[in-house]
């Protein structure tokens, strides 16, 4: 087994059965990050000492035939807004670099550690998670492993690119308006944004408190489920299936809808074709409308700007020059916005939630494009989507925003095409029904229509390097 090419559960299985040691796996991934990351700029810290210590503990547990967690020895990395003991929690900013190191891990990092996973580093992101492109002026842009001239999406761009580039089989991110779902699509990996409130956000630097959610990335639906369940561990209230179902339930009982209207108007032909391809594979033909989805996106935009502007008000007053130039203007505009905009947006949120609940009386799951189009060039100031001129940093997530606005659980399922940039489809379920998202994602993956892999460019370079050696 080449651990760099293996999925997370295969790595855990190999370590559990003593075919490879956790230390060998950790060293392989750490070496690979050193060799590869200069091309993609995913990592802002590599936690080598910690990774090797955690791996050593796993190897000792294996040798002692002690109980092992479901992710034993699996390397992973986290968006740098998660607290990691001993590291300053950058949240993509220069300002936070001056903070003292975190005294303990974020709650979900503690849970992954209990599950046996090995932390190998912290990952680049848009400053304060406020952007959809991970073009970070302080730490450089993250580059898409499928084409390094293109964005990885954001704000969890480092996380998605690290998984797509084979530098980690699992990564954690956060999703406020689409910051897991969008980069997952643009980098061609699976990504989950659970129901708002499902996962513990303790130790996770906020963007907009009424929207923020912890999420994760993987290259298989099963790995994603295992990571998600590890993050839930200890939560007595979760209502989900076991991580590795012995028999994957089919989807015959699910009524599947295809989102139309707004989601058609703001997506390019290939993004809609991806949804159509998945719908065909699932036998879905019914189209459903989320009424006023465009207005929901507008309301989410207002709420995010106001909450984020307020959160950073103190530093905006005293050191505005230290903020990301690409998002400072939006934070300032949010900070000075009239209160009635915010209150009305939150009231509209209640109305919209009720409307979509009615849609979910007619279907169990909804498919929608995760992005208006494929990844844009790094530095692009404007994109045209079906006649609309849009700013990528603010608008690439326009199809994910209405969904997180009302806290729905969603998995982005990747859609890969030979010679083309990846796309993704949102699989959206009613609140607390992540299990439905996983059933549909697994079905799509097993049917062969959806898949993820390490980007071809990375694989090709590895083959050349091996041939040369």
């Amino acid at each position, binding site marked *: 087994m080449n651990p760099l090419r293996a999925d997370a559960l295969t790595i855990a299985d190999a370590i559990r059965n003593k075919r490879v040691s956790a230390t060998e796996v950790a060293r392989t991934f750490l070496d690979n990050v050193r060799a590869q990351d200069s091309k993609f700029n995913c990592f802002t810290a590599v936690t080598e000492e910690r990774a090797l210590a955690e791996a050593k503990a796993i190897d000792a547990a294996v040798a002692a035939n002690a109980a092992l967690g479901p992710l034993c020895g699996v390397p992973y990395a986290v968006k740098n807004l998660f607290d990691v003991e001993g590291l300053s929690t950058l949240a993509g900013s220069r300002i936070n670099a001056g903070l003292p190191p975190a005294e303990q891990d974020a709650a979900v990092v503690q849970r992954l550690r209990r599950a046996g996973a090995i932390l190998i580093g912290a990952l680049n992101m848009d400053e304060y998670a406020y952007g959809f492109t991970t073009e970070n002026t302080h730490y450089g842009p993250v580059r898409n492993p499928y084409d390094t001239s293109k964005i990885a999406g954001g704000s969890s761009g480092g996380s998605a690119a690290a998984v797509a580039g084979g530098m980690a089989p699992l990564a954690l991110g956060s999703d406020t308006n689409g910051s897991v779902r969008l980069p997952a699509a643009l980098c061609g990996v699976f990504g989950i944004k659970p129901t708002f409130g499902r996962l513990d956000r303790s130790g996770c630097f906020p963007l907009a408190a009424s929207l923020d959610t912890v999420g994760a990335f993987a290259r298989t639906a099963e790995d994603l489920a295992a990571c998600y369940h590890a993050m839930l561990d200890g939560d007595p209230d979760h209502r989900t299936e076991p991580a590795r179902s012995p028999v994957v339930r089919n989807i015959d009982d699910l009524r599947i809808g295809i989102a139309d209207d707004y989601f058609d108007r703001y997506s390019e032909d290939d993004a809609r074709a991806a949804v159509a391809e998945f719908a065909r594979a699932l036998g879905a033909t019914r189209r459903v409308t989320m009424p006023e989805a465009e207005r929901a996106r507008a309301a989410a935009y*207002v709420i995010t700007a106001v909450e984020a502007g307020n959160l950073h008000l103190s530093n905006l007053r005293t050191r505005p020059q230290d903020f990301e130039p690409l998002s400072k203007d939006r934070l300032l505009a949010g900070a000075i916005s009239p209160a009635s905009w915010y209150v009305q947006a939150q009231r509209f949120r209640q109305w919209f939630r009720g409307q979509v609940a009615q849609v979910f009386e007619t279907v169990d799951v909804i498919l929608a494009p995760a992005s208006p189009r494929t990844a844009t060039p790094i530095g692009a100031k404007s994109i045209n989507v079906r006649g609309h001129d849009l700013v990528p940093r603010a608008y690439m997530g326009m199809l994910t925003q209405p969904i997180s606005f009302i806290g729905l659980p969603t998995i982005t399922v990747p859609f890969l095409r030979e010679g083309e940039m990846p796309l993704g489809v949102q699989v959206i379920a009613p609140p607390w029904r992540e299990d439905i998202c996983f059933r549909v994602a697994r079905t799509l993956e097993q049917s062969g229509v959806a898949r993820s892999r390490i980007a071809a460019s990375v694989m090709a370079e590895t083959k050349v390097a091996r041939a040369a050696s």
Partner: protein
Amino acid sequence: MRLNLEEMIEPMAEPLGLAIPTDARPAVAAALQRLVEAADAVMSFPLSDNIEIAQVFVP
């Protein structure tokens, strides 16, 4: 309605103790214009008085 947002920024920022440099005002005005457009969409929607604000505070 088109407002001269660059002129509005200072009176809106001053009560918050925010000093927005003159050279930053065009970008902030552009960001505020996008917010005005989004807020227009929200404010113009005929919500019933019975709709309460979304609750996010859990006591």
